[in-house]
């Protein structure tokens, strides 16, 4: 059984077929790239996988179970977490609180327990605080824990978004252009981190990226979209030589 499997997945926006019969599989612990020219429908795939859009047709299965019709928060709870192309942090919350929001689903205490500060509340809050700070250490960001997220520099904001997604304990992590706006050194660091995350959290990663060096280096397999249609799939080497892909990127 695959971790994630889509079959004939498609969506129509007001007459425009934004995505057409996408077949895609991702297995445990894989790092897979989703590439294609601007407007090819990559982010649409993410929005479908996370329940933001409801597909017009086809199937999405996570560990064999269909997730179509589930709400975004339900999909996150059963194991798919994402980052956003244009960073969506909780800007006026602290860095640690950003992460704790994602950990909310694994905390148990009820609203009344919170209002009367019963013991369960204290204990779980201490635990979650410790966990959040541990998570921040991965990116050497533990010093920023009590800062407002809005005050972080751009690169750290991107990293915080990844950490926040990881905090929800996903089986599949979707990264939407994680290297956007980063310089080559930062991008190289990011590659290391992505591999590191996969090993440490035992998570499969699907990433959208325009930086070809990152994609070719980190991803084990690639899917290439153009005008909403899958035009190629396979190993980076195979994709590099694929004529349809070259044509799509050069626009011939």
């Amino acid at each position, binding site marked *: 059984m695959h971790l994630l499997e889509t079959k004939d997945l498609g969506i129509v926006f007001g007459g425009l077929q934004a995505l057409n019969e996408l077949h895609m599989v991702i297995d445990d612990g894989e790092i897979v790239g989703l590439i294609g020219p601007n407007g090819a429908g990559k982010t649409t795939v993410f929005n479908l996988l996370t329940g933001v859009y409801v597909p017009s047709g086809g199937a999405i299965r996570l560990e064999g179970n269909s997730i179509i019709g589930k709400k975004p928060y339900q999909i*996150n709870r059963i194991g798919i977490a994402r980052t956003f192309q244009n960073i969506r942090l*909780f800007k*006026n919350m602290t860095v640690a609180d950003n992460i704790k929001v994602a950990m909310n*689903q694994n905390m148990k*205490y009820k*609203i009344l327990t*919170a*209002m009367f500060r019963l013991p369960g*509340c204290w204990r779980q*809050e201490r635990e979650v605080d410790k966990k959040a700070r541990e998570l921040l250490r991965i990116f050497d960001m533990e010093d920023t824990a009590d800062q407002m997220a809005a005050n972080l520099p751009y690169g750290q904001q991107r990293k915080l978004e990844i950490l926040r997604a990881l905090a929800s304990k996903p089986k599949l992590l979707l990264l939407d252009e994680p290297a956007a706006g980063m310089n080559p050194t930062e991008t190289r660091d990011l590659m290391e981190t992505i591999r590191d995350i996969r090993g440490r959290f035992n998570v499969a990663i699907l990433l959208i990226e325009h930086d070809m060096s990152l994609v070719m280096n980190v991803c084990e397999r690639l899917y290439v979209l153009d005008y909403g249609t899958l035009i190629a799939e396979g190993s980076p080497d195979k994709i590099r030589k694929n004529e349809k892909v070259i044509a799509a990127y050069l626009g011939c």
Partner: protein
Amino acid sequence: MGGTKKSIGVSYIINTTLVVLLFFVLLIFINTGVIGRYNTQVLTLVCINIILAVSLNLVTGVLGQLVLGHAGFMLVGAYASALFTKNIGLPLSISFPISLLLGGLLAALFGVVIGIPALRLRGDYLAIITLGFGEIIRVVSYNLEITNGAKALSGIKSLSNRQNPSPMFIYAFLIAVFIIVILFTFGRSRHGRAVISIREDEIASESMGINTIYYKLFVFVFAAFIAGVAGGIFAHNYGTIDPAKFDFNRSVEILIMVVLGGMGSITGSIISAGSLTILSEKLRDFSQYRMILYSVILIIVMLFRPSGLLGRYEISVPKILRYIKKRSSNKKVPPEAREE
């Protein structure tokens, strides 16, 4: 939210002591007649408005959804509890607390009915729907038999009397303190974080596993409940109510308290509710100009300081003391240094 455990503990003790002290000082003044009947009523109104402001702050400041019909929920609570104590035939000391609960529950029920359609949708529907609700509920209560129509519903008994002037104040004060405390603890829990995350970015919040509709509905309905309770106290504090007491202007007055106090700051709401209530009681002759002034304040604050006059920061005595101490020892302290 730094601060060691010890300093948090000390803060709690200092704040609690001050509140208890304030309570007893006021109580002694009322019972000895230093604070007269009228001023006791005003003090009770201050507590009622504080309850209203902190509950609206929960929805508008913390959750980030504009509610323009808070007076409507107050109206529902006021009539429900007044009609209950008038007709049930139990001694007031028993029926009054029950009536408050009842008023709150009925207001909450209205909250559910209008919250479900409005909050499932993204965007500003809640503002207009609550505005509509506030207007309509008033029109309806003008036209119903049970509310005595446009004629006021009078003869609502008060627990306070000449011999014993304080019970209404005690009720209002204790309920206000209780609500403030649970809103504080709620705001600093996992649930509070979830609610704030919805204000910050609803889409991100949902994609991080937060059931946004559930939290939005809970917060809105809870605030409606509190407003209903406040309405019940209000009715019994004045003895006479009519629909005009709960019009759009009252909703706006509560909103002003929240905006001036700072969107999301509970202490800010308390301070501005207290001062605005007393101010508008003293400036009754200028009430014509009051609404114009309010509207100008709203526009200016939103244009130049959208998070409200005091922002999101909470004020506490220990914090002020520490700030002064640090100031006097000539260390630079960022103004946003905040602790529990």
